[in-house]
Structure formats: C-alpha cells, structure tokens
C-alpha cells in the first residue's frame, strides 16, 4: 500500500503541492513565532547578563519590569565608601541612572521610537557576570560636565551623530530639552545589541546635578567579587552592612528574576502570534479535509478496484492516511524553512519600528522543530481522517460501475450536527463570559471556534439560498454562463461549503476586530467628549512620560488659565499589578469631568483615593473600605473615597493625586498636561505660545480635543492594521483553498468542459463561468464570515463594555467593503484554474473518462 500512496502523490504533484501549501503557511507561522520570540529572548538575555554584576545593591524592590512609573528612591553615596572596605569585593561602583532620556536625531526625529527605553547613567568600569565589561569606550573620550555626553555606537549611528557633534536630548529634567557635545562612543557588552534601547552617558557629577538635584546619591551599587569568592558569599557580607529597606542580591538571582519577567512579556507576544498561527491552521484544516475529500471522490473507482482485488477497508483507509502523512511531513519541512524566513522578516519589521534586535541570534531550537512537525503532521492526518474513512467504505462492486461514488453523509445529518455544535459553542462562550475556571478568554475563543465549525457544517444547507440569490444576479448579468456557474456551485454543496468556510473563518475574525476597533474608537470619542473640558492637551505620542518642567512653563504663559497634569504608575495589590492614574491640582475642577458611581471627586485627598467601578465590584469594595497598595516607598493603606465610572476618560484601576503618588516614591513625570485657555485668549495665540515651550522636542506635542481624539483613533487603527495583516494570512490560505478546489473541480469536470466547448462555449465564456463560480464561493464565505463576525462582535463588545468599550458601533460600510473585496478575491482565485480550463484541448477533454 505504501507504493500506491507514493505513486498517487507523485502522479498528482500539483495537487499535492496545493494541499500541502495550507500546511506550509500554517506551520511557517508557528515556527516563525517561536524563532522570533526565541531571538527576542536571546537578545534580552544578552542585555540582562551584560548589565548585571556579581552582587547588586538597590532599594528593596516592590514592583517589577512590567510596572509603570520611576522609583524615586536612592542610595546615599556614603554607602559605597563603606562597601569599598569589603576585602572580598574586587570592585565597587555606584550608578546614577535616569530613565526617559531620549536622543533626538540629526533629522529632528526621536531615535528608537516607542517601546524601547532611553537610559542615561554615569560611565562605569564594572564587569558583568559574563566577565565582559558593561561599557567600553570605543571612540573619543569620556564626557565631563553637564554639556558633554557619550552615546552607544548604535544610537549615534542611527541618529546620524559623530564625535564632536552637538546632540539634542529629551530628558525628564529641567530644561526638558538640552544640547550636549558628543565626546565619545561606548559599546555595550561584547556585541552591542540593545534591542533598540538608547544609552546616554554623563559623568557622575553631571548626572547628579541634572537629575538628582545635586544630591550625593546612587540609584544602585554593583560589586564584583574577588577571585575565589562566590556571589552568595559576597552578597551575605554586603547585606550585613546595609541599612533597612536596601537589599543585596546575587547577580545570578537578579538576572534570573529579570529574565523571568521578560519571558512573561515575550510569552504574551508568542501567544499573540500563535493565536494567529492557530487561526491559519484551522483554515488550513478546512482545506485539507476538502482536498482529500475531492481526491478520494475522484479516485473512488480506483479505490473500489483495490477493494475488488482484495484490499481490506483498513488498507484503503491507511493508504489515504499515508498520503496525508507524507503531505504533512513535506508541508511541515517547507513550513519550518519558510517560518525561519518569516522570523527574519519579523525581525527587520520590528527593527524598522525601533525594536532593533541587531546581532541577536536566530536560534532554531529543537522545540521549535518538534512543535512545528507535530502540529503540521497531526493537523494533516487528522483532517484526512474522515475522507480516509469514507474511502475505506467504498464498496468493491463500484469498480464495475460507470459512476462509482464514495458514500457521503446526508446533508440533513450535517445540518443537525452543525446546529448542535453552534449550540455547544454558545454554551462555551457563555461559560467564558461567566469566567468559569478562570479561563474566560480561552473558553470564549474555543466557543467561537466550535460555532464556526458548526456553521461551516450547516452552511451546506444555509449556503443554498445565498447561492440561489447570487444565481439570480448572475443570470441577469451573464445569462446562461451565469446559470452554469450557479449550478456548478450548487452541485456539490459540501465542497462549496468547506471552501467558503475557510474564507468565513478569516473574515469572521476580520469583521469581529473591525467592530471592536470601531466600538473602541466611538467609545473613546464619547468618553473624551463627555469628560474632557480642557481645550488643549499636551501629550507624548510614544506614551513615554515627560519632564514636569513643561507644565510649569505652560502654566506661566499669559493666555493660559490652568495647566493640569496627569501621571501614570503602577502598584501592587494582593500580588497583582494595578494601574494608577494620578491627577494634579485643578484637573478635577477645570480640565476633566469624571462620572462618579458613588461618592464625590472632592473626596480625593489625604489617604483617600478613588476606585474604578469594575475593580470595586470585583474586589467587593465600596466607599469607606480600606485598600493596601505596594509602592516603592512601601505598602500603604488607603481609603476608598469614591467610585468612578470606568467608561469615562480615566480607565485605570485607581485614581490618586500627584502628591499621593510622589509620597509613594515615584519620580514626578507627566503623561499629559490638560490646558485651559484664559477666557478671551485666542486659541491660535495660546497654541503658538505653548508650541514655543515645546519646541525642539518632536515627541511631546500640543493637540486640541479633535486632534487628540484623532491621535487616539490612529493608535487603535494601527493596532487594527497589525491584526488585519496577521489575519490576512488566513485569508490568503483561504484564497489558495478556493483556487485548489476550483482546479480540482476543473480536472474532475474536464469531460464536461470539453462538451461545453464542443457545443460552442467560447474560451472567454468558459473562463467567466469558472470565475463566477469562484466569486459565488467567496461571496458566500464573506457573507457568512461577516454575519458571524457581527454576532461575535456584539457579544464580545458586551464582554468588554466595562473596559472602556461601552458603545457598540458596527462599521457597516467597512464590512460592505470586505464583502465587495471578496468578489475581487474570488476573481483572483479563479485566474489559474480558468486559464487551465480554457487551455484544454476540446477533443482531448471530451474523450477524457
């Protein structure tokens, strides 16, 4: 039977290639996701290990890498002098580090973009646990004084600066934008890879003067153990000398903890990518089932002959599964290779938006290969199982008949199976909504998948009226050719349904995302419209906080009545992170209206804070209850003074004052300044004044309400486009599926094509007939998909209505465009099969059995 399977595959190389293609793309996505996140991981590993010394001394950590806000605590310089006395410490170095220092390139644009951090610190000669020095001066000399800096080589190159140039920096200090001469270049570690982060090096005195009010402090102290002294030994010796609230950790532990935090973030990225890989695999499964069903149907006579010659059901069954296995193995192999290329593509894409992986390796780990093959082969073989079983059930006597056919399940049964799957899916989604077993999202996703499969099964029947209506359109527009196309699309409802379903899955998700995106935009607009009373907003498009000096200067302008600041941070409650928004004086009076569920905004003072209504409901807290929150300065207990509506402009978990936040140990840095112009001042004059304050800093910009809203919408759109692009792959697979099905149908109907040509059907008419059949399939898929997407969109919008998406808005025009595009997609899918059919020799075709 092996030989028969292989012969079959070889005899149908094209069909093999086409059915394998769905697997290739799906597996490529899986492999690419792993390789890319592994590459990210190895880049971060390099940074973490390259910056960590044998023992690290720092204020006790409360919040970790994922948290927002800068810890204001420092260590006294005198501590370093004490530690220098330790005989087991070979080297002791203090670092004064400031986050949020960015380099403005020679072209006036920010280097690095959004995401990667911009760090400033003093030069250090410390070596990391890797044994390599953290920094090495590679050109020029070290900076001296507040007007000189060194940059890392990558940043200088990207910014277009060379030694001797004057560099513009955006800093959280005052003044926020400063110029400094570039005196030297440093290399980070041995490779220089910083994943897009930028390093600005000052001398110690300068950095203290600029960012620490000239105080003799460090943000951390690193120690290198003498030969023969272990990290733990040195840590214990150091710890004994430290004041309370300050901790010493071994480099290995710090590196490990940081890596864990990063791995968690990278895990999200990987999961995010794998979800799309999963969608692609589901679509691919539809196509493999379909391809194998068609192949089995076309070969039923040959299969019956095998049975007549004594092959058992099992042998026939196995021969089909073997084919699937070989297709799976070949497809996975090509998929892993393509996935590697995809990861390289992702790497340069991320590099283009600032997350530069530089020289980070692209490890193809054994785990990646194993997962890829397991997924690829399992999906292929599982998808081929039903067709294979049907192949086995062909009766031997069929071999003697002219019209041998493989038995197929009844449409009615399919319809009922589909309907019950839809029911089960609805239950799963409801369970997901209720958050059963803490698996809300996973259950909801599974429910959606089950519903989609159910609709796909039922679409053999559901699709019929749609196709008939399309048939009327085709008849009007194209006469008999249209009728023939409609008949062809109706003659094998299973095939049409399965092919259309592949497109349905992709489009359902695209429609779902566009509904959520649109709802988010409309909700944001309404929240801003209803809450923001200040006319102008200063904010940073890259979400990085900026110097509080801006707000102070704007406040002093003539035409400005008030300039209220908004800051963000995070704290820890019961081990989990909570998002905190802090408002400066005047915000709640002049700039922002916050809808309250209970209590008043005036309650916000002293130890009293405001809480989001969903958080309050989740935690069972109300006005007057106490809440302990971990902040840099330790755990503090606050009183819930009021509960605000999460659908206003403030969507974080807690609302505090900037004073409370500073007291909790955060460096004052603003995220937004809400400006109200004086009565009678012209907007254009006020804007010109504020622009004067913000000049030279391309990231912090002034917007009026409409522009601010547009910026918010643009961010939602950007996210939406990324998701569209990822879902695009599923659509591409579905289009290939239509091509594949049509090509197989043309082969199957060769005889008929010959006949039609013989009685006078022109080549163009023939091509049009196939194109119309393709359009019928894709429009059916698109309509089903959009319908499902609208249903899912409504349900999911309800599910996230307490997370800031409280208004349901369905972008009908956009959805209509998707359906219209499916006509184009259908035409494209038909190009090759139609050309192939038109090229058939009439006489050969008609004599084909």
């Amino acid at each position, binding site marked *: 039977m092996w030989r028969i399977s292989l012969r079959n595959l070889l005899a149908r190389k094209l069909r093999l290639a086409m059915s394998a293609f769905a697997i290739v793309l799906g597996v490529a996505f899986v492999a690419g996701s792993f390789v890319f996140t592994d590459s990210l991981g190895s880049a971060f590993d390099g940074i973490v290990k390259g910056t960590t010394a044998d023992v690290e001394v720092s204020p006790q950590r409360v919040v970790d890498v994922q948290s927002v806000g800068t810890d204001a605590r420092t260590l006294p310089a005198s501590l370093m002098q004490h530690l220098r006395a330790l005989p087991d410490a070979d080297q002791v170095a203090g670092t004064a580090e400031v986050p949020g220092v960015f380099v403005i390139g020679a072209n006036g644009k920010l280097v690095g973009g959004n995401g990667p951090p911009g760090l400033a610190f003093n030069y250090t000669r410390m070596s990391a646990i890797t044994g390599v020095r953290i920094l090495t001066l590679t050109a020029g000399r070290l900076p001296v004084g507040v007007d000189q800096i060194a940059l890392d080589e990558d940043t200088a190159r990207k910014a277009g600066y060379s030694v001797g140039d004057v560099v513009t920096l955006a800093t959280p200090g005052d003044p926020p934008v400063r110029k400094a001469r570039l005196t030297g270049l440093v290399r980070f570690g041995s490779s220089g890879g910083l994943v897009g982060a930028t390093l600005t090096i000052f001398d110690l005195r300068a950095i203290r003067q600029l960012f620490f009010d000239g105080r003799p402090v460090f943000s951390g102290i690193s120690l290198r153990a003498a030969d023969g002294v272990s990290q733990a030994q040195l840590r214990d010796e150091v710890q004994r000398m430290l004041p309370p609230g300050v901790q010493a950790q071994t480099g290995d532990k710090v590196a490990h903890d940081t890596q864990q935090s990063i791995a968690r973030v990278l895990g999200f990225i990987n999961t995010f990518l794998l979800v799309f890989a999963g969608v692609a695999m589901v679509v691919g499964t539809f196509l493999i089932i379909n391809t194998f069903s068609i192949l089995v149907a076309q070969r039923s006579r040959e299969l019956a002959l095998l049975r007549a010659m004594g092959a058992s059901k099992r042998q026939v069954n196995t021969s089909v599964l073997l084919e699937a296995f070989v297709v799976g193995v070949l497809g996975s192999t090509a998929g892993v290779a393509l996935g590697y290329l995809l990861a390289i593509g992702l790497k340069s894409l991320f590099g283009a938006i600032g997350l530069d992986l530089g020289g980070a390796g692209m490890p193809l780990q054994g785990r990646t290969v194993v997962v890829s093959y397991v997924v690829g082969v399992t999906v292929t073989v599982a998808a081929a199982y039903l067709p294979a079983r049907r192949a086995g059930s062909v009766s031997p006597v069929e071999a003697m008949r002219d019209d041998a056919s493989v038995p197929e399940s009844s449409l009615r049964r399919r319809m009922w199976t589909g309907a019950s799957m839809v029911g089960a899916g609805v239950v799963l989604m409801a369970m997901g909504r209720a958050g059963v077993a803490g698996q809300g999202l996973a259950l909801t996703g599974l429910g959606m998948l089950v519903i989609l499969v159910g609709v796909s099964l039922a679409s053999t029947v559901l699709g019929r009226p749609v196709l008939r209506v399309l048939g009327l359109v085709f008849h009007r527009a194209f006469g008999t050719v249209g*009728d023939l196309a409609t008949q062809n699309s109706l003659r094998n409802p299973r095939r049409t349904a399965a092919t259309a379903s592949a497109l349905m899955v992709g489009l359902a998700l695209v429609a779902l995302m566009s509904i959520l995106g649109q709802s988010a935009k409309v909700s944001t607009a309404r929240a801003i419209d209803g809450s923001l009373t200040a006319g102008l907003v200063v904010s940073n498009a890259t979400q990085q906080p900026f110097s509080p000096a801006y707000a102070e200067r704007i406040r002093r302008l003539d035409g400005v009545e008030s300039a209220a600041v908004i800051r963000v941070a995070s704290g820890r409650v019961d081990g989990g992170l909570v998002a905190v928004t802090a408002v400066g004086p005047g915000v709640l009076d002049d700039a922002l209206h916050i809808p309250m569920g209970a209590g008043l905004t005036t309650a916000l003072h002293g130890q009293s804070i405001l809480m989001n209504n969903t958080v309050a409901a989740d935690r069972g807290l109300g006005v007057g209850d106490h809440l302990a929150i971990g902040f840099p300065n330790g755990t503090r207990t606050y009183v819930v003074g009021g509960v605000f509506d999460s659908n206003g402009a403030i969507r974080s978990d807690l609302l505090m004052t900037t004073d409370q936040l500073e007291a909790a140990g955060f460096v004052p840095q603003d995220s937004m300044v809400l400006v109200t112009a004086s009565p009678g001042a012209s907007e254009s004059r006020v804007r010109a004044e504020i622009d004067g304050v913000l000049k030279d800093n391309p990231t912090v910009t002034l917007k009026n309400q409409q522009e601010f809203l547009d910026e918010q919408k643009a961010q939602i759109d950007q996210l939406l486009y990324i998701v569209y692009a990822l879902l695009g792959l599923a659509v591409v697979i579905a289009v290939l599926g239509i091509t594949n099905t049509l090509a197989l149908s043309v082969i199957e109907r060769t005889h008929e094509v010959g006949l*039609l040509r*013989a009685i006078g059907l*022109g080549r163009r008419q023939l091509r049009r007939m196939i194109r119309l059949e393709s359009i019928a399939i894709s429009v059916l898929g698109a309509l089903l998909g959009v319908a499902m997407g609208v249903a899912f969109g409504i349900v999911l919008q309800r599910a996230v209505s307490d997370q800031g998406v409280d208004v349901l808005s369905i972008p009908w025009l956009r959805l209509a465009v998707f359906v219209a595009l499916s006509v184009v997609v259908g035409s494209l899918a038909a190009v090759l099969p139609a050309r192939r059919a038109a090229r058939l020799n*009439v006489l050969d075709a008609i004599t084909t059995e």
Partner: protein
Amino acid sequence: MEATEPTTSVAAQVVGLHKEYGVGGARVAALDGVSLDIRAGEFTAVMGPSGSGKSTLIHCMAALDSPTSGQIVLGGVDISHLGDKELTRLRRDKVGFVFQAYNLVPTLNARENIELPLAIAGRHVDTAWFDVVIGAVGLQDRLKHRPHELSGGQQQRVACARALVSRPEIVFADEPTGNLDSRASHEVLEFLRMSVDRFHQTIVMVTHDPMAAAYTDRVVFLADGKVVDELCDPTAAAVLERMQRASRGSAGRTSGG
C-alpha cells in the same frame, strides 16, 4: 428512400485532408488525403475499421480538431485555418454534434440541455421549432428531468434534439448508438432519419454497425486514412459485404489497428 439527385448542393466539402499525430519516428497519419463531398439534405454514414480515421475525419469537419493539411469547406467557408474564436463560433452556429456518450450537462434538465447551445450563443429559442423537434424526439413529458433521471436512449435523444434545435447546417454524430441497446438505437436512428426526411437536415454519422448504416442514404468507407469505397442506398447486407471486402483489402497492409 429515393436516390439523391446529383444536382443537390454540397453542404460540406473535404479536399486532400491530412491529419498526422506525433512527431518524427512516432508520426502516424490518421487521415492520408481524404477528399469527400457531403451533399445537403442527405444522411451520410462514414464506416471503417478501428483506426481507419473515421472519427478524426468528423472531428476535423465539426471544427473540434484541426487538420495538418488540406481543406474543409463548411457552408461555403474554408474552416481549415480558422482560429479558436472563429471555430467556437462555427461550432455554435453552424454545427450540431451528437456524441457516443450522450454528453449532457448533469446539472441541467433536459430542456435546459437542449437550449444550451442557443443560450450560450445568446440566441432566442424558436419556440415553434423547439416544439417540433421535441415532438419528433418524443420527449414532451421528459423536459423537466435531469440526465440521471433519463434512460440511455432518452439521453441520446435529448442530445440529438440539442444538436438540431439551433438549425445547424450540418449535424455530426459520432457512433450515436454505440452505447445503446437495439431498441433505443432504433429510436435514435429513426429520429435522425426523420429529421433528414422532414426537415432536410444534413447529417454525417460515424458508425461501425451495418444495421445503423442501413438507415442512411450513402455510406463512405474509410481505411487507413483514405476513402476506399462508397455505397448509395445501402442495406445492412450490402454494407456488411462491402466491409468484409474492405477488411480483406487492408489485411496485407502494416498500419491500421
């Protein structure tokens, strides 16, 4: 059946037709210089042993295949060097074809199948003529049936009606009774005969059955790609006798088969 007048006009004319398949050493001549006139309003049979080129001849004449050299004139037009577009139009407008294997479109019912060539051409159905044809094939109560709901004989009659309904200048039938039992064969042949007699339809039929040939006005015998004999007003016995003579004649030659 009366003998056709020699003055009758010519519906199709074949002059020095050659058709070769393959290249180089594998080259095989299916037609080796065939010249033939098909007279209008006459029922002509083309007979010959397997491989004699009879199917190739009518495929070329029906614009389904193109000859290597030679001339085919159909309704006054030389079709030997037309492109695909013109050939398609010719098949659609001037030629009807009946296949051995019925060749109906499975998704269409009998009426739709019959009207298909007209529909493809965008021509209107001549209802009166349609009814006449349907009446003649005796399919009035089968028009709503799909091909798989019809017997072989009925399917072939639908195919005949399809060939006739566009009033082609000439109908070609390639072993139309090859798949039928004797009763169904008789029905189909009767219908073809009648359409010649009543509608003056020109028909060329390939067959290897002397009984079928006996329904025609004239039998042309082919062997090894050449016209070797001809018989007017044939009877089954006469055809059989000529066939045996022809096969004896070609027994000594190498090609054929």
